[in-house]
């Protein structure tokens, strides 16, 4: 018996489709890359600095927490990289270094690791971190202030702030094509609409994000904006404007469908996305904040566990 060959014994099934968490992470960053690239071209070295610092500090926070909590190092799954990259996409290129480090700290530790790490976070870590920074340091996410020394050949006014303060007449300079091509100020990776849409379509087709959530979110934004616009075309911008400005597109494909904080059943996914979209425009148009995307996502994250209880009855089960 001693020289018997040793075989692997394990439980069925004996096949796996070969997917992995790191694959999802790498492809998410890949899909985000074109949008980030335009940010780098437009804003230059400061943007590069923010991106590098954001990704590296996010990974270091994760490593530090792994060490402190004496858990296996989880950097290999790529999730820290994704969170770092997404934070940088939302941040202005001129964000001070301490804000970036603070932001990734909030995202990684308060947003993710204190709940037990990947899969345990009830809120979207990146959205949470942006919200806390917005509320704690006034002006960190003020894009008008951030790009005051830039001259890029298009309007340097943050479109959402312009429409909120001065009404639709103030945004007559912006046309859909320019917005789509990234001729607007905003987060490093959140202005280039076309690239975000291409990346989003890639993620949806590859099954890395749940398309139901993304599309219902966009539908919610578009529908609500259209209704506001119809009620008062002088004060409220139309659907196209809301879809192409602020964090709408980056949220639709990279924040709202974050795995852990969003539902998995069909009807909850549709309600979740739609409600987040509606809330986004409500906050933009009648709330205190210029862009409501972040708060809309966080609110829906809290509702998510309840929503996900709406599910089809298991087959073979008593009524």
């Amino acid at each position: 018996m001693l020289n018997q060959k040793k075989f692997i014994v394990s439980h069925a099934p004996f096949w796996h489709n070969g997917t992995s968490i790191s694959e999802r992470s790498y492809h998410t960053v890949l899909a985000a890359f074109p949008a980030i690239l335009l940010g780098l071209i437009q804003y230059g070295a400061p943007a590069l600095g923010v991106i590098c610092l954001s990704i590296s500090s996010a990974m270091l926070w994760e490593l530090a927490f792994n060490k402190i909590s004496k858990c296996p190092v989880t950097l290999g799954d790529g999730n820290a990289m994704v969170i770092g990259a997404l934070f940088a996409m939302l941040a202005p290129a001129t964000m001070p270094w301490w804000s970036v480090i603070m932001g990734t700290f909030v995202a990684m530790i308060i947003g993710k690791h204190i709940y037990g790490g990947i899969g345990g976070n009830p809120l979207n870590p990146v959205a949470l971190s942006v919200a806390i920074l917005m509320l704690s340091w006034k002006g960190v996410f003020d894009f008008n202030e951030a790009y005051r020394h830039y001259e890029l050949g298009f309007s340097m006014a943050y479109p959402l702030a312009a429409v909120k303060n001065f009404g639709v007449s103030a945004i007559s300079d912006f046309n859909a094509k320019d917005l789509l091509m990234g001729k607007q100020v905003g987060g490093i990776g959140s202005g280039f609409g076309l690239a975000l849409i291409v990346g989003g379509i890639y993620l949806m087709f590859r099954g890395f994000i749940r398309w139901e959530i993304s599309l219902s979110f966009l539908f919610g934004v578009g529908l609500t904006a259209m209704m506001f616009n119809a009620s008062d075309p002088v004060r409220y911008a139309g659907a196209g404007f809301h879809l192409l400005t602020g964090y709408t597109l980056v949220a639709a494909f990279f924040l709202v469908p974050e795995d852990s904080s969003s539902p998995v059943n069909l009807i909850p996914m549709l309600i979740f996305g739609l409600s987040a979209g509606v809330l986004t425009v409500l906050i933009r148009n009648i709330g205190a904040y210029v862009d409501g995307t972040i708060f809309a996502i966080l609110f829906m994250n809290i509702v998510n566990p309840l929503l996900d209880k709406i599910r089809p009855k298991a087959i073979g089960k008593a009524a």
Partner: protein
Amino acid sequence: MMIKRSFFGLAKPRFAYESANPAKPEKISMPKIVTLFCKTPYRGNGLLAVGEKVKTGQKVLLYGDSDAYIISSVTGTVSSVSSYIGDFGKSYTAITISASAQEETEDVFGKDPAEISLENAKKFLAFSPGAPALEGFSESDKSKIKTIVVCGVDTDLLMFTQQYVMKNRTEDISKGISILKHITGAESVVIAIPRADNSDSKPCGMKNAGAVGGASGAEIREIRSEYPAALPHMIAKEVLGNVVTAGKTWEEIGISFFSAEAVASVGQAFRSGRVPVNKVVTLIKKDMSKVLVEVRLGTPIRDIFNAFDVTLNEKDRIIIGGPLTGASVYSEDFPVQPDTDAIMVQDAESISAVSDYPCINCGECVRICPVNVPVNMLVRFCEAGKYQDAADMYDLYSCIGCGLCSFVCVAKIPIFQYIRLAKYELERMRLANLESEEAANA
């Protein structure tokens, strides 16, 4: 080689059941020893002494106080009686018989039609190829199980054992069906055959099934060719419609499943007066090529590997059954059992490891679950050992055991294993409770 996720991950993976027309099974030379597992825990040698001579087809009782028996598949001498612990700690008595050169076959029935009875079937056929599930039936209470389903479909992928039997042993199956109907008093018999979706490779000619159905008054149902349509719960849904099956035994539901081979065994046994001892098995090699093999029950799988030049190295995997629902074994000495429909070998290279990562809530399992179990929630409760909550709130008992959730799990969580463990633990707790209640009452 492994089935990968398609580039467009939106599309669900489609697993088609094997539909090739297998050639006649190849026979291998007689095994030198056979090992037979009796479904009763080992309690010493009992009635059986080492050195005792047995004939092919002879019934061997093990213990005076138990009806458990085996049917010797060779002529020879008993060389050992020992204990074997299977999956989930299930205990068997393993009887090893060394075969001698001269074969003598024992007749257990005469040709008298009066001998065709449920009692005789239970007494002699429980260990025949296909393992006919006769325990659920009883003489006194004939009405409990109303439907017998004859499965001419293979439950897992890559196998064609039952399809082959369904197609090629029509006479035995027809006879088996009429006998089963007669002795069990079942109201209806349904034959499940694969749906022939392309005409080139009809998995099981309708003509043959029609012949069987017509001759024995059975109804024929075609089963979709997509996994897991041929798993018992899915067939039950097809046959009975949407009935409550979660957490119930097949007996309570009133349905009994017989593989085509089991029915053929019943037919053959009463036709010939002897208990059949040959089992058809699909051998799935490392390159996923398949061969149909006919062997004596109890043949060590090593003999099959040797006959078909399957070389195994350290860290390969041997699977009894198919790729999604089988069970791996640790030794090439493991024998072919009455219900062994396939033997699969996997190269160390193609074995994917499971991980202890938590669920990331991607929802792939929820999308693929054929019975709408909220797997993402279920696995969290199972991981935490909250088995009762898993059953009460998250449909543990609706799970039909197809294994697809583990197959698609991005975090590589052994979900199916957690589910099986949860069911096993709950059953163990239920039995312990029953025992303590009985003790309290006594």
